[in-house]
Every structure is written in structure tokens, then in C-alpha cells.
């Protein structure tokens, strides 16, 4: 074998990727060719340098914890979904409709449980002025399609970066298309002097506004019906959420539960 030929295979050789016969030929050549032998030595040094000198970025404890929590939720969902998961192709990142059906089944089970204790909570409460204000916002934005969204996109990877640098918290921008909620886009509002992210989703022709502002405390979900509008409100992870729509309470609750479960 020529030196040039040897050098083409040198890396595969030091990585033990060559068959025995070829390996033996290379070893033979190296013993009497000082140039190729020097190149091999340099390669081994380089490999050692990279291994010992470059950082290895291990996963942080907070990342581990966060993944464990999400997996526990997902595992729970799978157990609640009385549907066998069909084989899915690796490169597909969309859920099949029946996986989604399972998720929605779980979400509605969870939400009906919530309804029981939430309903008697919300009856006792007065209509908070902020919710009335959000309904005004919701209606006003629908009346003027130009005002509805500043960034029009069904892609959360377009909408989320649009908010960068405009808010003092990270808004949740979820892709819920498979659950029947199409993202139409987002805009920025100031509500009670708080910078507020607004996302518009649509389900069966009903637009839904999702308002997000910064929260200092967590708050369990509550739902309300005000003048025929349904409002769900909760706070978690430093963000306060309001879902406003003219659909029935169940619809708003389902979306709210999906958002809670997924994020």
C-alpha cells in the first residue's frame, strides 16, 4: 500500500474500524515508514488532547429534575389513555390523532374533576375587573383583524422569538394544532401597566385569546363565565395565564388543562 492510501485509512485504523487483514497491513507499514508512523503518533496525541482537554457538558440537576417531572406526567397520561400507542416513525414529530385523543381524554377527565370544586369557588367570587378588561381586549381585537396579531404565524418557533426582549418573563407558546387549536399569532399589550403577551388560537372557528403576564405567586386554575364569555385563570412558573373565549366553559377548561399538562 502507498503512503497516501495508508493515510486515508489511518483514522479508521486508530478507531479500530478496519478488518483484521487491513489492520495488519497498516501495522506492517507503520513499523518501517517513519513519516506515516509520525502522523499516527500525532493523531493519537490529538485524540488524547481532545478527550482530556475539552469540557464534557453533563446534564445539570435542575434539567434532570425537570425531565423526571415531565416524564412522570407523560407516563401518567399514557396510563390514563385507554388506547394502545401505535408505532410511530422516528422522524415524525406530529402526534397521531388517536394519541391526541388519548391526551384529550385525560385532559377532560382532569378538567371535569377540577370543575366540581372550581364551580363553587367561582360562584362565590365577584367578577374581577381584570377579567372584564381582558374580555374587552378579546372582543376589540376580533373586531379589527389588523389589531388581532402583530406576528401572524402558526409556527410557535416564529411566534416565541418575536416576544424576545419585549417581556420580563418567558411566555408559553405551545403547538396545540394536533389537539384542534390552531395558533394564529401573537401580539403585545399593556394591561394595567403590565406588559402582556397575547396569543390567538382558533378552534372550530372560535378565536381564543391567551393572555400572559408576569406572576409573583402560583395560583390554581379557576374558571368563570362572564356575559357569555368563558375565562380560565391560573399562575405557574412565574407566569399568570388567562384564557378568554366565547366558547363554553368546557372548551376553555380543556385548553387550559392542556397548557398546564404540557408546560
Amino acid at each position, binding site marked *: 500500500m502507498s503512503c497516501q492510501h495508508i493515510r486515508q485509512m489511518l483514522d479508521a485504523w486508530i478507531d479500530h474500524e478496519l478488518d483484521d487483514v487491513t489492520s495488519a497491513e497498516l501495522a506492517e507499514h507503520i513499523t518501517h515508514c517513519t513519516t506515516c508512523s509520525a502522523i499516527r503518533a500525532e493523531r493519537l496525541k490529538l485524540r488524547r*488532547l*481532545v478527550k482530556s*482537554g475539552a469540557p464534557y457538558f453533563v446534564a445539570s440537576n435542575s434539567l434532570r429534575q425537570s*425531565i423526571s417531572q415531565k416524564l412522570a406526567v*407523560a407516563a401518567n397520561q399514557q396510563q390514563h389513555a385507554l388506547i394502545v400507542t401505535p*408505532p*410511530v416513525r422516528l422522524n415524525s414529530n406530529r402526534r397521531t390523532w388517536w394519541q391526541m385523543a388519548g391526551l384529550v381524554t385525560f385532559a377532560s377527565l382532569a378538567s371535569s374533576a377540577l370543575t366540581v370544586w372550581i364551580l363553587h369557588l367561582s360562584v362565590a367570587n365577584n367578577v374581577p375587573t381584570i377579567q372584564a378588561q381582558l374580555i374587552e381586549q378579546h372582543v376589540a381585537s376580533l373586531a379589527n383583524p389588523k389589531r388581532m396579531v402583530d406576528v401572524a404565524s402558526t409556527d410557535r418557533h416564529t411566534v416565541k422569538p418575536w416576544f424576545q426582549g419585549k417581556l420580563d418573563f418567558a411566555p408559553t407558546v405551545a403547538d396545540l394544532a394536533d389537539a384542534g387549536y390552531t395558533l394564529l399569532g401573537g401580539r403585545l399589550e399593556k394591561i394595567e401597566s403590565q406588559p402582556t403577551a397575547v396569543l390567538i388560537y382558533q378552534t372550530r372557528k372560535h378565536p381564543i385569546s391567551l393572555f400572559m403576564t408576569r406572576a409573583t405567586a402560583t395560583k390554581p386554575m379557576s374558571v368563570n363565565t362572564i356575559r357569555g364569555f368563558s375565562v380560565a385563570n391560573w399562575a405557574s412558573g412565574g407566569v399568570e395565564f388567562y384564557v378568554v373565549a366565547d366558547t363554553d366553559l368546557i372548551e376553555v377548561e380543556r385548553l387550559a388543562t392542556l397548557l398546564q399538562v404540557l408546560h
Partner: protein
Amino acid sequence: VQDGSTLARFEATVLTHLDAAHNLARWLTQNDAAAEDAVQDACMRAFRFFDAMQGVSPKAWFMTIVRNTCMDYLREQKRVGSTVEFDEVQHTVDDVYKSASLDSPECAAIRKAEARDIHRAISKLPIDFREVIVLREFEEMSYKEISSVVNIPIGTVMSRIARGRDLLRDALGEARLKAAS
């Protein structure tokens, strides 16, 4: 039908490679937050598709998902025009060496400046070479596994590793390689 041990099986076969996944994601995205997001997304996808697991090994399968998730992120960054400038990556690299967190025994053995140069040299590699070098040098994956993760023929894996090492050698300079023992 899902049984209670699915999560346990997932943890034992897939999640055990979480450090490897994070290391790959961090080298590909060159950004802490993006790497964590990508790994988290990849874990959820892997869990969802766990029943459909296939390929050379669980590790290669998981790394494929991590790699694809990172590529989606990088493509998106490019599309919205917020590609991280190379200078920025270099600042990040420099910051790592200012902090004390890297004072592991492995790093103590080598001079900090040298470690920084190696880090820089790898960061500077075009991504096609960087990914195969990371999979080979850190994870010691076989060419066959790398071929399945990156979805390229084994011959291409071979030539990319060789070319990647050539680029690293050029970046580090002969002096550094001669001085290193």
C-alpha cells in the same frame, strides 16, 4: 397496553444516556439554554416514541432524536436570522474558562489555556465535522452508530472524522501537538 414499568424501562435504557445527550446538544447548539431545551424536548419525544425504538442501539436511537432536535433549533435560528455569531460563541467559550466550575481533575492536568484552545478549535469546526468528532471522541461511538445518528453512509463518517481531525490539528497548530505528551 402501557404498564407501570414503561417509565422504569425508559429510564434504564434511554435516560441513562442523558449526560451524553446533553453534551452533544451543548456542542451542537453552543448555547446552555438551547441545549437544555433541546434535551428536554428530545426526552419527551423519545418517551412518546419509546415503543417504536429501533436502530443500532438505544443510545444511538436517543442521540438521533437529540441531534435532530438540535438541528431543528439551528435551522430555526438561521431562518429567523438570529444565528449566533461566531464571536459570541468565543465569548461563551472564554467565560467557561473564567469560571471555576471547570476545575475538574481532568482539566487540572492540562493547562487552562490549552483547554480553551481545544474547546475553541472544536467550536470552530463546521457542524458536519463537529457532530461526528463529538460522537467519536467523547462517546466513542462506532462508525456504524455514528452513521445511524447522523444518517450518512459509513464511508462518509470515515472521511468526515479524518477531515475533522485534520481541521483540529490545523487549528491547534503543530507546536501544541508536539508539546502535548
